[in-house]
Structures are given as structure tokens and as C-alpha cells.
């Protein structure tokens, strides 16, 4: 316990006194064994024989017992899997970093296979010198590391009109959180030379793939924190996340994080491309639509227990766990309700919230074996409190598709199983 003085961790004493308070329940559930456990009394094969040698898997996948912790898609959502989406198994993950191999994918024309050697990035438009960079060029600029969440604007979009999909993976799984390594877009724009006023200018960013997914981003944002990233979680980006290079647009909707980034054009207005007019615009009840709704507002979700993560133990100590995030900055607090929003308790943040990154929260609590209507609500550094579905609907109606950051309810039943419900 050499790090027990670390102020960011709950103190050991607090933990112990918490344990003492629940001592009765602990004693109650520490039932005496009827017979000795053969897993202990008998010599098991793994305690006698040999396991795999090194290189059994030169690049390892999770052990087979975790084979159901995978991305999943909802077939009826899209016509095919090429222009489609799948979902991160957030219900089964802990901590905050999403392994690349199970981080959700969204393609508009499939994940393309491109080499670093074939990669080119063009900076053109209102710059002093239009430039072409190779991948090797990018690696020669000073680089930075940042952890950011990437959330599809349509995450939770299927829930606007009511509880529909039964699982945190499906309701909230269009999100991942990785540590990116890359070059600030500002560095590359500076290399091409920006002259004149920044205000009122835009960059249009587009990808190499056939969808030519393109988005207009205010130059202010491009110069602020956008990253031209080539690594995630310490290794090269995966093909499905834009290998070899993607754009990272912290706190803003995932569609802007253009994969296979091929061109950045400085312009004096937005292109109003298909992805920023036909899609990623939010239709209100009166039929008018909001455009340029880039920031992802504060949001949270209880990942366990949840429909895919029933409680498998009896009454007694349990951990309610979840994720919170905000495109406006750091998460400062997460509250949890067990009674559908009548009363709230403040959960423990595993670490202080980081800007535009996932924050893990835990509520170390007791389950009495009864029904619970679990909810979580995130609060970010701007004081923004995650709204209820009713509050969102009051302002936006039910046809927005995007930016549904409502409080989610899971009905946990005495059996331990949980269901996606809506409450009054």
C-alpha cells in the first residue's frame, strides 16, 4: 500500500469502515461450505500439466471464455453491413480504455485496406502552400498523446420513442475511448501556412474511402484540439478505425472523426455535405432541424448490472458500475438512483474525470434482493446535469435521432435479471 497517500484514491480507512458497516451482511452471506471444494482438494490439470508455450498466439486474442465479449450489430437497423454500425460490448468491459478489437465500427462504404506506403494527406484551400504529406512525414512532427471518447451522434438514437433494445451494448455501445497518438492538426495547418483571420473560416475534412465521408469543422476547433492520429492504445489504428490515419475531434460527434483522412481544405464556408445536412442534423417536433450540433453533451450509463449483465449473486454487497462522459470537458460527479429517480446517491469516480474522456464510476452498495430501477446521471465541469428522457423530449420531440443523452433506466428484478424500461 505504498500509494495509500494518493489523494485520488479512496482512503483505505474509508474503505475499511465501509466494510465494517456492511459486516453483518458479509457474515450472513459467508455461508459454511457443505463439503470441501474439489477445485481446491483435487489436483487440477492446470496444476499438474503444462500450458501453452510463448508464441502460441503471436498476437493474442482474449481467452476463449470471453468469446461473447464482442462487437454486435443489430441486423434490422441497416440494409447491409457495409454501410452500417456495430456496438462496443460496454456491458462487459471495466475501466475506461476500450480495446481496439471490440471498439464499435461505423462505416459508410466499408473498412478499406490501405498501406502506410500508399497513404497521402493533402492540405489545400486557403493556405499559403498546399501540401502533401506521406505517413513518414507525419511521423516526423512533434506528437502528442490524449485519451478521448468517440461517440456516434446516433448512440441511444433508437431509444427516442421508447425503450427498445435490451442491453447497454445496444443502447449505449456506439462509443469507445482510446489513448491516441498523433500530430495536432494545428501543426499541419501551420506548416501549410494560414494567413489572415481565423474567425469565420472552416476546414473541410474527408476520407480516402469511397463514401468520401466529409465534414466541415470551424477552423477554431481545428486549431484547438483536433489530432491527426495514427496510433490508439499504443498500437497502430485498426483497419476498421481508419488505419493508417484518422482525425480525432475531441468531444464532438463521431462522424466528424474522419477515418483514412486524406484531405483537409481550409475554406471560407461550410460545404454542407450530405453528412451535415441529410444526416447528423436533428429534427425537432415542429419539423425544423438543428444543424451543426457537434458537441456531445454529458451522458452516463450503468453498464453493470444491465440486461446483458444480470446480478448472479444473492443479496448483499454489490458493485454498480458505469461510464460517464461529456464533450464539454471533465465529468465532476455521477449520481445513481435505485428507485427510478426518487432518491439519488453520489457514486465514486474511479479517477477524477478527464476532459472529453470516459470516466468510470462505481457505487459500492448493498442489494436487498428486491426490485431496483437503476439510473445514473452525469454532471460535467460546466454544471450541466444529464437530462431525463422526458426533459429531452419536451424540447426536442422524438424525431431527433441524434444526441439522445437521456438518463437510462434498468429494471433489476429479484431474479437478478435486468430490463431496459422507461419510467414516469
Amino acid at each position, binding site marked *: 500500500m505504498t500509494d495509500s497517500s494518493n489523494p485520488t484514491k479512496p482512503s483505505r480507512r474509508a474503505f475499511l469502515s465501509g466494510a465494517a458497516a456492511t459486516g453483518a451482511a458479509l457474515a450472513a452471506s459467508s455461508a459454511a461450505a457443505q463439503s470441501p471444494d474439489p477445485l481446491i482438494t483435487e489436483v487440477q490439470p492446470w496444476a499438474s500439466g503444462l500450458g501453452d508455450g510463448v508464441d502460441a498466439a503471436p498476437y493474442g486474442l482474449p481467452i476463449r471464455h470471453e*468469446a*461473447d465479449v464482442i462487437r454486435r450489430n443489430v441486423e434490422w437497423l*441497416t*440494409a447491409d453491413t*457495409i454501410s452500417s454500425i456495430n456496438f462496443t460490448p460496454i456491458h462487459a468491459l471495466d475501466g475506461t480504455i476500450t480495446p481496439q478489437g471490440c471498439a464499435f465500427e461505423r462505416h*459508410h*462504404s466499408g473498412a478499406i485496406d490501405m498501406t502506410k506506403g500508399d497513404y497521402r494527406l493533402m492540405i489545400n484551400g486557403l493556405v499559403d502552400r498546399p*501540401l502533401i504529406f*506521406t505517413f513518414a512525414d507525419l511521423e516526423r512532427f512533434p506528437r502528442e498523446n490524449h485519451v478521448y471518447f468517440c461517440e456516434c451522434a*446516433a448512440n441511444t*438514437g*433508437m431509444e427516442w420513442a*421508447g*425503450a*427498445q433494445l*435490451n*442491453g447497454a451494448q*445496444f443502447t449505449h455501445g456506439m462509443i469507445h475511448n482510446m489513448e491516441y497518438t498523433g500530430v495536432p492538426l494545428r501543426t499541419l495547418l501551420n506548416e501549410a501556412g494560414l494567413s489572415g483571420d481565423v474567425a469565420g473560416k472552416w476546414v473541410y475534412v474527408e476520407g480516402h474511402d*469511397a*463514401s468520401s465521408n466529409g465534414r466541415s469543422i*470551424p477552423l*477554431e*476547433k481545428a*486549431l*484547438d484540439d483536433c489530432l491527426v492520429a495514427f496510433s490508439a492504445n499504443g498500437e497502430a489504428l485498426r483497419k476498421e478505425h481508419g488505419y493508417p490515419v484518422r482525425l480525432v475531434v475531441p468531444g464532438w460527434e463521431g462522424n466528424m472523426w474522419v477515418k483514412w483522412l486524406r484531405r483537409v*481544405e481550409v475554406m471560407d*464556408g461550410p460545404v*454542407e455535405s450530405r453528412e451535415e*445536412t*441529410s444526416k447528423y442534423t436533428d*429534427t425537432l417536433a415542429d419539423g425544423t*432541424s*438543428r444543424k*451543426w450540433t457537434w*458537441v456531445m453533451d454529458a451522458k452516463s450509463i450503468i453498464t453493470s448490472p444491465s440486461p*446483458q449483465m*444480470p*446480478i448472479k*449473486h*444473492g443479496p448483499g454487497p454489490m458493485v454498480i458500475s458505469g461510464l460517464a462522459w461529456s464533450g464539454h470537458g471533465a465529468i465532476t460527479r455521477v*449520481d445513481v438512483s435505485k428507485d*427510478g429517480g*426518487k432518491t*439519488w446517491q453520489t457514486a465514486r469516480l474511479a479517477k477524477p474525470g478527464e476532459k472529453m474522456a470516459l470516466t468510470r464510476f462505481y457505487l459500492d452498495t448493498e442489494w436487498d434482493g428486491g*426490485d431496483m*430501477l437503476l439510473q445514473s446521471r452525469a*454532471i460535467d465541469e460546466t454544471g450541466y*446535469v*444529464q*437530462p431525463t428522457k422526458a426533459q429531452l423530449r419536451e*424540447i426536442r420531440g*422524438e424525431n431527433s435521432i441524434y444526441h439522445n443523452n437521456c438518463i437510462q433506466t434498468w429494471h433489476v428484478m429479484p*431474479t*437478478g435479471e435486468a*430490463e*431496459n*424500461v*422507461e*419510467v*414516469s
Partner: protein
Amino acid sequence: MSKFPKLLTATAALTLAAAPAFADTFGLGRVALPEEITAWDLDVSPDGTGLPVGSGNVMDGDDLFQENCAVCHGVFAEGSGNWPELAGGVGTLADDDPVKTVGSYWPHLSTAWDYVNRSMPFGNAQSLNPDEVYAIVAYMLYSNDLVDDDFTLSNENFLDVAMPNADGFIVDDREATEYPIWRAEPCMENCKDTVEITMRARVLDVTPETDTPAAQTETVTAAAAEAPPRRQPRHRPRRRSRRSIPRWWPRARRSSRNAPPAIRSAKAPRTAPARISTASLAGSSAASRISVIPRGSTPCATKDVSGTKPAWPNSSPRRRPISRATRCPFPV
């Protein structure tokens, strides 16, 4: 740009202040050649900037559309199955189920030209020449009743076409309409008198099966490891024999919208829910799978937390997702 969130403006000011440091460059990269810029800089802006010289008429557009697009988007651009519909829907944007198409929703014609030019046909993008794109866009306008059948679209008359929903957009106003309300200290206790479950996902029964029975896991994994990498289905449009529909088929006989295939039954079967004890759950090796509850069980039989009558089935508007679920709610 005054509409930007304050946060952004603040950071921008910081960035601007730091601008002198930008003067230094690394001398990396090389200057882009004009031919290279021409090859990639294809985007078209609402004011027509970026449009090449050219033209195409509705008739030619019809031929090209049937050849290259109809297999997915329907003969009259009305959509097919789950593939996007490109025509119809004017006047539906405030409805329960708005139909958003090039005609009913898109504010700028430039977007249609630009998107078709760079991204369609799906699986064979960038295969059309400018005149062909003008013709196809003219046909899409015609399919949306926005032009007559003798219309020719060109770079010259491009901006004359009025898009029905041109004024239908406002810039993000959350800063004014939402944040002030939701930046208040939240309630912690006695926040509401009663809590009632008003809707359950299980009733819809649209969640994919995610069972991975432990017994099968091993075989599944082994098979997956051995299976050759899945070939990506090709998306070259399958050539269909041109349908023998008269070129100017009367509008009334054109199907306006394909009825979406019913994917799930709308009614929850009324079978009694199976009781599953915590003990059997804990002992189940497949306990982490989703369908612990037999699909289609009637959730009303489950005890409600608040002790009030379960709200399902009811006549509340919350029932709408049932019809929703049979449509494609994900915005491809």
C-alpha cells in the same frame, strides 16, 4: 460565427494569442501539384463553387438512374427495402415518422450533386462523368416533383432550383434552449412522488439474440479461428433487366413508398413468464447471456417496483416504437 458555443470562442482566442509561435515550420511535406488538387478537391458548396461545367436532362437521368441506382433506390427513387429513399416525404417533417429525402429534407441541391458525384453508386463511386451526374440529379428532382420531365440541369441554372426545405434548418441552439435549464443543482431526495414503469424493451422483442452458450463457445471459437476471412460482399449493382415500365408512367401508379418489411411481430405473445431463480442464474454457465428471460414472455406479470399497475399494455403514445421497430431507425 457568433453562434459557436462560448467555450469554443474562448479556446479560439487562446489559440489566436498563441499564433506567433506558428510562424515556425518544419519544412516537411511537399507542395501539392495543381493536377493533384484537381483530382481530390471535388467538393461543391451551396453557392455552386466547385461545380464543373456541364448539363444533363431528366430523360437521360432516368436511363442512368435505372442502370446505376434503381436496384437500391427504386425505379422512382422511392427507396427499396432498407436502402435509402431519395424521393417523396414533402410535408412530413413534423410527422411522427418523417420521411427525409433529397426532396423533402435536403436544403441545398449542391449536396445532391456533390454526394452522387463522389460517393455513388455504392460500390462503384466516382464512375460517373459530370454530365451524367447533372442528368441523374435532374431525374432525382423530377422524382420529387420539383421539375418537369423536359428539364435540363446545368452549372448555369443550378442555383435557380428551389429546394423545399431550404429554410428548414437552424444552427445548434442548445446553448440557449437547453443548457441554462440543465445547469441547475439536481434533486437528491424526494424527487418524485411515484415511479411507474411506462414501457419495457422486452415487449418489442427487437434485441438481437446474443446467446453464446458456454457449451458451444469452444466449437464456435475454433471454427472462427479456422474459417477463412469472410469475403466482403460486392456492391456493384446487380444488373437487372430493365423493367418494362413505360417511361412516363402515371404518377398515381408509382408506388410512393415501399412498405417496409415487417421484421418483428408487433404484439407480445401472452405466455406466462418462466420463473428463474437467482440460484439457477448463479449456477448457469451461460448466465451472462442476454435472454435469461424467455423471449416473448409477458412482462406485465412481473412485479412492478412502485406497486402500481404496470403501465403495459396501455394506450399511451409510448407504444409507437412498435411500428418504429419495423422501420429502419438508423440513419444510413
